[in-house]
C-alpha cells in the first residue's frame, strides 16, 4: 500500500478519527488539566463529602481532597503507564520475536521456550509478587514491571510475522546481493512490519493501563502520587458507594473504560486501513 492510499483510508475511517479525537482530548486534559486547578491531588483542600459543585467540579472525597485534581493527575499517570509500560512490552516483544524468527534454529527454540513459560505463568500473580517486594514504587517502576511481564504474546506474534516476511523473495534477492544482515533487517523487513508493530503497540498501551489499574486496585500501585486505579481503590476502601458518594467512583471508572474502549476502536479502524478486505468503500 502506498502512502497516498494509506492517508486516504486513514483520514476517511470514522473509527480512527473518532478514536483520535477522544485520545487527543484526554491527552490535552492530562497535560493541561493540572494548570486548571489550584490544589494538590493529595492536599486536604476543603470540606469532605461534597458532591460536584462550583468550587470542586467533581466533588471531594472523605478526606476533603479535590477529585477533579485527582482525576487529571490520575489520568496523566495512567496514560504514562500505558505509554511506557506498553512501549516497553512492545519493544521487548519485538526484539525477542524478531530475533527468534530471523535467526531460527536452536536460538528460536530457546527464546520461544522462555516466552511460553512466561506466557503460562499468571501475569497478575507475578506482578503482585514483584510489586510487593519493592518498598518504593513510582509510575515508572510500575511501567517497567508491567512492560517486563506483558511482552510474550507480542513476541510470538512478531515471530510469526518475521517468519513469513523472511521467506519473501525480496529478502532472498537482498541476500544474494551479499547485503549485510543488519541492512536486510532494517531496510527490507522492518519497514514492512511497521503497520503491524503500530497496532501491537496500541493493544499493549491499553493492556498496560488495565494491568496498572488492577495493581492499583489491590493496593500495589505507586506509593506516592495518585492514579485512576488508586482513586478507585480508595473509593472502595472508604465505602463510597454505600455512602452514596457516586461521584468518587464514576469518573475514574468511566475514564478507564473510555481509554481502553477508544484504543480498541482505534485498532479495529487501523485493521480496516491496513487490511483491504475489511475496508468499507
Amino acid at each position, binding site marked *: 500500500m502506498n502512502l497516498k492510499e494509506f492517508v486516504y483510508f486513514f483520514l476517511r475511517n470514522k473509527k480512527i478519527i473518532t478514536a483520535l479525537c477522544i485520545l487527543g482530548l484526554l491527552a490535552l486534559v492530562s497535560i493541561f488539566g493540572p494548570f486548571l486547578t489550584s490544589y494538590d491531588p493529595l492536599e486536604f483542600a476543603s470540606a469532605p463529602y461534597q458532591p460536584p459543585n462550583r468550587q470542586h467540579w467533581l466533588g471531594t472525597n472523605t478526606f476533603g481532597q479535590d477529585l477533579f485534581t485527582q482525576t487529571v493527575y490520575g489520568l496523566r499517570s495512567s496514560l504514562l503507564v500505558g505509554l511506557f509500560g506498553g512501549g516497553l512490552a512492545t519493544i521487548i516483544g519485538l526484539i525477542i520475536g524478531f530475533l527468534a524468527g530471523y535467526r531460527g534454529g536452536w536460538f528460536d527454540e530457546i527464546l520461544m521456550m522462555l516466552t511460553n513459560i512466561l506466557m503460562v505463568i499468571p501475569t497478575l500473580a507475578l506482578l503482585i509478587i514483584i510489586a510487593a517486594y519493592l518498598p518504593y514504587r513510582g509510575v515508572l517502576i510500575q511501567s517497567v514491571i508491567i512492560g517486563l511481564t506483558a511482552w510474550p504474546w507480542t513476541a510470538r506474534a512478531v515471530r510469526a510475522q518475521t517468519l513469513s516476511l523472511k521467506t519473501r523473495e525480496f529478502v532472498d534477492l537482498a541476500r544474494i546481493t551479499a547485503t549485510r544482515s543488519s541492512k536486510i533487517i532494517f531496510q527490507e523487513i522492518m519497514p*514492512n512490519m511497521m503497520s503491524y508493530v503500530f497496532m501491537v503497540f496500541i493493544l499493549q498501551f491499553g493492556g498496560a493501563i488495565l494491568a496498572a489499574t488492577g495493581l492499583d486496585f489491590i493496593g500495589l500501585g505507586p506509593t506516592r502520587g495518585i492514579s485512576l486505579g488508586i482513586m478507585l481503590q480508595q473509593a472502595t476502601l472508604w465505602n463510597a458507594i454505600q455512602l452514596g458518594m457516586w461521584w468518587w467512583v464514576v469518573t475514574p471508572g468511566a475514564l478507564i473504560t473510555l481509554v481502553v474502549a477508544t484504543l480498541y476502536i482505534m485498532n479495529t479502524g487501523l485493521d480496516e486501513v491496513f487490511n483491504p478486505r475489511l475496508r468499507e468503500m
Partner: protein
Amino acid sequence: MKLLSLVKVVKDFPLGILGRERIRAVDRVSFDVYDSAIFALIGESGSGKTTIGKLILGLLKPTSGEIIFNGQNVSKLLEDPEKYYRNVQGIFQDPFSALNPVKRIGQFLERPLKIFKIPDVKKRLKEVLSEVELPFDSVEKYPHELSGGQRQRVVIARSIITRPKIILADEPTSMLDVSIKASILNLILRLRDDYSVSFIHVTHDLASAKYISDRIAVMYAGQIIEEGYARDLVDDPLHPYTKLLRSAAPDPNKSIAKIGQTGEPPDLIALPNGCAFKPRCPYASKECSSFDQMIEKDGRKVRCILYR
C-alpha cells in the same frame, strides 16, 4: 567447460519441533552445467527443484554432497559472499514480491552496484535497463507503477548488473501472461548469446524448457529421474513420468479422451520403497520396490527399471 556441478547433493528438512523425523527434499542429485549453456530443471510442486535453486544460491546449506563452482566448493566460496554473488545470481518466480514496495526501481538497482563497488553507477544503470528493454525513466518509478512483465525485467536487470557467470532462474515466467512469457524467454536467450552467461532454468513447463534449454533434467520427489539433451528428452521421453508430462502438455490435435488417469502427486512424508513414481506408474512391477539407480544408456540417463 564445467561451470557448476552438483555431486550427490542431499537436503533434509526436519519435521516437527524436535526434528527427529525428516523430509528428504533433495535426494542424491548430481548434474553439471557448462559454460554459456541453459540447463533446465523440470518438476512439479514438491519435486525439490526450488530447493536445489536455493542450495546453489547459498540460501540453504546442503545436508550432504557438494556443490562446486569453477572448481571450488561453494560452501567455501560463500565465506566471501561478495565474490560468490558477483558470479552467481538469481531471478525468482514472483515479480510482485521480489520488489520492495516502498523503494523506487533506481534504489533497488543501485544497491548491488554499491555493494559490488561498480563504478559509474548511472552509466551501468542505463546499460542494464536497455539490455532488458526498459526505458531509462523507469528508475524514478515505484514497483506498483509497473506491470508484472516490467517488474520481471527489473529483476533480470538486477541479476545481470554484475555480469555474473551463471544465473539461476526459478520459474521466471510462471506468473506472467503468455504474451509476456515469450518475450522473457527470448530475453534470456539473448543474454546468454550476448554475454555467454549460463542459466539454470527451473520450471514446471516442458514446452518452455525445450524452447530455450540445451539440456533438461526431470525431477520427481527429490530425485532426478531422467536427464538428457532437450530434443531427445522431449521428443522421445524414456521415464514413464516424463512420458506422462509429455502427454499432458497441451496439443491442439489431441482430444481429451486420450489422456488417462494421472494419479495423485507424491507424499514426501510417506514415500514408497524403491522408485517413488511406482504408485502412479502404468508399468510398475514388484521389482520396482527395490530398484533405485540411475542407468546410463546411449548418452542418456534414466532412473527406471525398464531400461536396465
